[in-house]
């Protein structure tokens, strides 16, 4: 059972790290600000979700595991809200303007 959990952790954390890398590559390579934002908020958040899922068997106690899930939930909400804010900014044309 412990070996199964460890294997699951390794696979999920590797998948999460891969998605993080994919999100970063998209962030660096996409031509448009809106598509960069999409890569950032969607792919990186998915990577974090997979990493949290992989780390859940490793935590020793239930409160610690709940803390991980809470952190993931918080980042989900934050990135959803932040992506709306940044998208409005880009839509208003500030993405082509100088840094204020």
């Amino acid at each position, binding site marked *: 059972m412990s070996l199964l959990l460890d294997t699951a952790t390794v696979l999920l954390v590797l998948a999460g790290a891969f998605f993080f*890398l994919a999100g*970063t590559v998209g962030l660096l390579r996409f031509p448009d600000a809106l598509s960069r*934002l999409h890569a950032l908020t969607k792919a990186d958040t998915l990577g974090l979700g997979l990493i949290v899922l992989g*780390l859940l068997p490793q935590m020793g106690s239930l409160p610690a595991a709940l803390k991980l899930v809470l952190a993931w939930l918080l980042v989900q*909400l*934050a990135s959803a*809200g932040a992506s709306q804010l940044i998208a409005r900014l880009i839509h208003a044309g500030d993405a082509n303007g100088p*840094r204020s």
Partner: protein
Amino acid sequence: MAEFLAAAAAFVLACVGLALVRLLRGPTAADSMMAAQLLDTGGAAICLLLAASGGHEAIADVGLTFAVLAALAVAALSLRVRSPKPEGGKP
């Protein structure tokens, strides 16, 4: 397992650093806000990985705080860009 998780944390840190360099050089305000958002997600991932790799669980609390503060940073940046403070010291 602990070394694997610490290596994963270092890998995520490298990804975040790479993207951050590019974003901080970006010419627009949206790039700055995306840098703050990236630090949110990446910093939370790094802290959670380190907390699970045998470190104290307090590092998970640091990751939670990181996520909250980075979200506030993005919100504050968005307010700052949309209504910049007028010169003369008026609040």
